[in-house]
């Protein structure tokens, strides 16, 4: 396949090469876009950082509350918290492990509650920041 350059075409393309007189405007517009990109990137990174912190906090609270729950179970007499009048293997197993089940449920609730509280606090802080920014732009 002949791949030599067509001289006439090459001349036409070279003659077409445009001269740009708005280089400064182009760069200014690009700088603005890059600023926006930077802002979004920083915002995303901050959000991810906060999310990670929230997860760590919830994990720590979960571990502590779990430890308390286990300590509570071990420190109390091994009598079931409740019994069922109906005799069933499953209900019997629940009654035997009632303390452990209740303690685990409490620990879980505390963890979920902590995540929810941290999430709500973050939402409130975000809304306050947004409000401040909106007021600045007004």
């Amino acid at each position, binding site marked *: 396949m002949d791949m030599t350059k*067509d001289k006439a075409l090459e001349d036409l393309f*070279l003659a077409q*090469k445009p001269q740009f007189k708005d280089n400064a405007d182009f760069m200014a517009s690009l700088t603005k*876009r890059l600023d926006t990109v930077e802002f979004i990137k920083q915002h995303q990174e901050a959000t991810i950082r906060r999310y990670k912190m929230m997860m760590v906090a919830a994990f720590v609270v979960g571990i502590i509350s779990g430890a308390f729950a286990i300590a509570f179970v071990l420190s109390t007499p091994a009598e079931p918290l409740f019994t069922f009048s109906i005799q069933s293997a499953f209900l019997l197993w629940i009654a035997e492990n009632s303390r452990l089940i209740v303690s685990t449920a409490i620990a879980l609730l505390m963890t979920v509650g902590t995540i929810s509280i941290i999430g709500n606090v973050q939402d409130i802080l975000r809304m306050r920041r947004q409000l401040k920014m909106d007021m600045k732009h007004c």
Partner: protein
Amino acid sequence: MTREIFIAHVEREQEALRSFLLALCCGNKGDADDLAQDALVKAYLASAGYQDKGRFRSWLFKIAHNTFLNHKASLRSTESIDEARTLVSNAASDSGFEHQDLYLALRTLPPKERSAITLFYLNGYNIKEIATITDASEDAVKKQLSRGRDKLQEQLKMNNGQ
């Protein structure tokens, strides 16, 4: 790559990039500059992974070429030569008005042939470099160049009333 280094590279290469996209957009300066800005933002976001081997321009052209193809795909419209003939040049492309014939002829080429022809004749890349930029094989580039050249010559003759 830091932002300062990126900006310095872009200042050096912006005219070549804009010329390339202007040819791909057949003289539509508004579209070409929008695509150039999009491509540069993409390049900036990807610049952390860029290893400087003195091939910044090729790397930038590759991103610009992909941005152009995505833009064409998103338009999903068929542009005929009749539409191109009725195209009114905007003020920004007036400098290229005298070369409207070339832009009209380029408009009849499929995007990949247009890219290959522009990189070959306007930017002076060889077949191997074009293959790298367009992610195609060298044989495919040769075919695109051969077909594109024939179509362009034919179209230019038609435009000149020969």
